[in-house]
């Protein structure tokens, strides 16, 4: 039953270049429609997660209070996403009837937000914590008020870590939104699971390619945004002192919070 690799790649190209697959019909949503749905699910979750976790993470880092929240958020990462998604769908979906997809959308968004909060929260916290004590001391000593220190000094210096947390959250949300198709929701994952169910492997693999392309595009976009928002004084692009790598900083942060 296994076709050769080359044959599959040719079929995948054929599937992707078929204009019929891009347009939606009354019976079938095309690539563009599913892409739009996918992006829409992700945006909702990311905006909600950002609104919750960024101010909270900055506040925890600034005041040093309630650091246990960071530990709790990180512990959430040990939950199997698929399991939580299925569980929430089974709980919530029966409460909705009719044409609406809210029964699937709501549990999916909850899981996506749950996934996106920990990296943004812990990186915002770590970013503020990593601001050198001398810098913070100088800021207060110059006569800045607490909110001024947070917004004018700590936030700009925490931006690289905040961006890396947000990028990580975005990637996980895009990946998990794909799995949402498994619980019958739309999005690019539809092609993967429909392809699998119909043994239409070119469709399945095309779905995989589209999801990967979306993830790469989103990350690239955020990398660009980061480049234009973060001061050259901290990116190291202005000179020497590259600064320690953000991911290791996060790892150390996680380690510290877990051993604490």
């Amino acid at each position: 039953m296994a076709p050769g690799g080359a044959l599959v790649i040719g079929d995948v190209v054929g599937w992707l270049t078929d204009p019929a697959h891009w347009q939606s019909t009354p019976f079938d949503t095309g690539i563009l429609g599913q892409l739009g749905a996918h992006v829409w699910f992700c945006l909702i979750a990311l905006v909600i997660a950002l609104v919750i976790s960024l101010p909270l993470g900055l506040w925890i880092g600034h005041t040093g209070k309630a650091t246990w929240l960071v530990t709790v958020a990180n512990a959430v990462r040990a939950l199997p996403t698929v399991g939580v998604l299925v569980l929430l769908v089974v709980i919530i979906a029966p409460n909705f009837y009719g044409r609406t997809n809210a029964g699937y959308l709501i549990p999916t968004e909850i899981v996506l937000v749950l996934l996106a909060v920990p990296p943004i929260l812990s990186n915002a916290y770590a970013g503020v914590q990593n601001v050198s004590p001398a810098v913070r001391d100088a800021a207060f000593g110059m006569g800045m008020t607490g909110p001024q220190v947070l917004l004018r000094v700590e936030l700009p210096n925490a931006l690289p870590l905040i961006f890396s947390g947000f990028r990580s959250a975005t990637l996980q949300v895009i990946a998990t939104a794909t799995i949402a198709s498994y619980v019958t929701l739309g999005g690019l994952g539809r092609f993967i699971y429909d392809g699998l169910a119909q043994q239409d492997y070119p469709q399945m693999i095309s779905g995989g390619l589209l999801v990967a392309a979306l993830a790469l595009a989103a990350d690239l976009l955020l990398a660009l945004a980061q480049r234009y928002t973060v001061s050259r004084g901290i990116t190291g692009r202005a000179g020497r002192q590259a600064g320690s790598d953000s991911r290791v900083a996060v790892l150390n942060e996680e380690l510290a919070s877990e051993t604490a």
Partner: protein
Amino acid sequence: MIRFDHATKSYPGGTVAVDDLQLEAPTGQITVLVGPSGCGKTTSLRMINRMIEPTSGKVWLDDTDTASMPAHELRRQIGYVIQHAGLFPHRTIVDNVATVPFLLGTDKKQARARSMELLERVGLDPAFAKRYPAQLSGGQQQRVGVARALAADPPVMLMDEPFSAVDPVVRDQLQDEFLRLQSDLGKTIVFVTHDIDEAIKLGDQVAVLRVGGTLAQLATPRELLSRPVDAFVAGFVGRDRGYRALGFTQSGSLRTHEEPTVTLGDPLPSGSDRDWVLVVDAAGAPQGWLHLGDQPRGAVVEDRMLYRGGTLATQGGTLRAALDACLSSPSGRGVVVDEAGRLIGTVTAREVLDLIESQGTPS
């Protein structure tokens, strides 16, 4: 004027960082707080701009109780320089300097123009203005730190070990420039250091604190060296304090002897009865000593023949410099020069010691 009025800082665990401090830092002068670690010198300093609040007692700024206004408003009137400069990594140098003017709502253009002036004033090339802190050396960052503290022209400056993180050569340079700057500006400065030599070099008055946060002695540097009040201060001030105290006594007019010299590029003198001959350049500035016995006859005096280890004393300088010139000279004769660096004559250690004795113990 800054006045500590029975200021005490204690912590819940029972640790007392500063114990009933009574101290006055006079207007326009440099008051140095010095002592071993744990003596509460930094805590005392930080009580002035309320980075630390006293547990009891007050700190006065002229006639104002510092506790009577919001802390951030107080701090904007007080320049603050710390050990690692604490420059904001995300702001350019010029914007770092303009921090307080920006906070006070000064027009951006005006604030930046003033910052550029200040950068020049602390000895930084204006080309640095658009760079970021990470691109500067430690010494340069520290200069920016000083400029930033001066930006809003505060009457009072607090400096917490500002020069301790740079290498000794740069530190010396920064200290000299700091004194030059202060002679222009006449700020009321409180300066914290653990380095007694720095305290003695910079302070108009020096407060020695002991562990537990009590004031051991408040005195001028000269008095501190000559009359330490107790064994702790004596030990802290150091062993060769007698010698260092000479640095505060003017030598007055030293009676010098005429010294035969030879100029660079001339042939070696013959028939001299001395072992060592002083070499000067065409302008009459001493260059070093020449050991006649080692040189071939008829040679020309060259740079490489010179012994350059000796220090020079300036006429009207300190006794310490005069004595050092004698002790460091291979001929035993200390070289004395005028303000322009031209040779006046030489003096022996015996003569300097006689002068010290005739002036009595330095006090």
